[in-house]
């Protein structure tokens, strides 16, 4: 068949559509990973956190998070005596460089690492108008960058301030619980580098996961339980002033 100018003009869009379908094919990341076998969460032990900022640096490096943006960060609380409703909270550079300066005197001081709570009833997912944010069958809240419009509804909806708008892609930016790692059998970057074990990735569907024993034997909280978000990041030893 001769390719005339007319035929080429007809063929090109057809080829483009066909190629789009080829590209849409599902990439096979980890063939042995079954979505329905897991239900991910995390355990944060405030009694162990030393505020070194290793998690913040590791997260930025692992996930290519731009400077000044944080998928996880460490806050330092200062609570004076009975004033638990007025804590003084600081987080210079998200605690990325550790806390080398001393905390304020006259009260108690402690560190609180924060990240996406991967809520079961996640408010950010509920407000997304285009289905760009979703909860995977294994309980991780992810963003589909190719669908995100950058409308910022989710950033307003998150009660924990865990979302931002990536300035390079103009799409919603958030913790993916290192989904590319946990599906390969690795732990998250933050849990990997945490020197004191203050962060522990937890598979709530795995009966052998040590999280179950820990939850049975400790007083554990989630952030803002009154919001009924179904947060899956559990805090041990958390003071009532933390919000």
């Amino acid at each position, binding site marked *: 068949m001769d390719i005339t100018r007319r035929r080429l003009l007809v063929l090109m869009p057809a080829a483009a559509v066909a190629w789009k379908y080829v590209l849409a094919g599902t990439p096979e990341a980890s063939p042995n990973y079954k979505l329905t076998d897991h239900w991910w969460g995390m355990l944060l032990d405030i009694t162990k956190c030393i505020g*070194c900022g290793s998690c913040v640096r590791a997260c930025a490096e692992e996930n290519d998070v731009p400077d000044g943006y944080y998928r996880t960060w460490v806050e330092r609380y200062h609570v004076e005596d009975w004033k638990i409703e007025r804590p003084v909270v600081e987080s210079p550079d998200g605690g990325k460089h550790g806390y080398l300066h001393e905390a304020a005197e006259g009260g108690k001081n402690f560190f609180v690492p924060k990240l996406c709570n991967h809520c079961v009833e996640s408010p950010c997912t509920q407000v997304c108008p285009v289905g760009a944010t979703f909860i995977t069958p294994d309980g991780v809240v992810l963003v589909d960058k190719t669908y995100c419009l950058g409308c910022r509804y989710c950033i307003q909806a998150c009660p924990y301030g865990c979302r931002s708008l990536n300035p390079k892609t103009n799409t919603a930016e958030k913790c993916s619980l290192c989904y590319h790692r946990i599906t390969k059998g690795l732990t998250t970057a933050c849990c990997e580098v945490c020197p004191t074990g203050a962060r522990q990735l937890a598979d709530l569907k795995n009966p052998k996961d040590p999280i179950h024993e820990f939850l049975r034997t400790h007083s554990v909280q989630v952030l803002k339980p009154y919001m009924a978000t179904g947060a899956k990041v559990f805090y041990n030893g958390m003071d009532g002033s933390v919000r």
Partner: protein
Amino acid sequence: MKRFKDTEHLIRLAAVMAIAVVAFVVLRAALVPRSFGEYGHYRGAAIAETASRPVAFAGHQTCEACHTDVVDVKKQGKHVVVACEACHGALATHAEDPGSVQPKKLDTAVVCARCHEANSAKPSGFPQVVTADHSGGLACDSCHQPHRPKIETETEGKK
């Protein structure tokens, strides 16, 4: 009795409607990704796309496969629980090609202080020093061996 005089109008209208419906169905099938709705109101393929990103941190199991000598030293001290990349940084590239990618030499004055600089917000049981008073500006590794930080006196007898 004939109910409508100009049935042709209705047929034309129906034809236009039918074309519109067909066009909608065809366009929708073409534009909505095939995996949309596979698990919920989102593009199912996005899960695998997120999962297929490369890792930056190799994980301590990977490091330990080769650096068994360091593992043996670490076992003798408290730093056994600290993963390699907590101090040395992300080194998946080194694990893939150990020859060409070499980890950077660390500045112990910076690395050690991040964890061990005294701070009242840290758990009281955690070993802390005011670095300025403790070492007088000397680098930490001039006395301590980072993989086994405790300094043993000769009487305690260790090599």
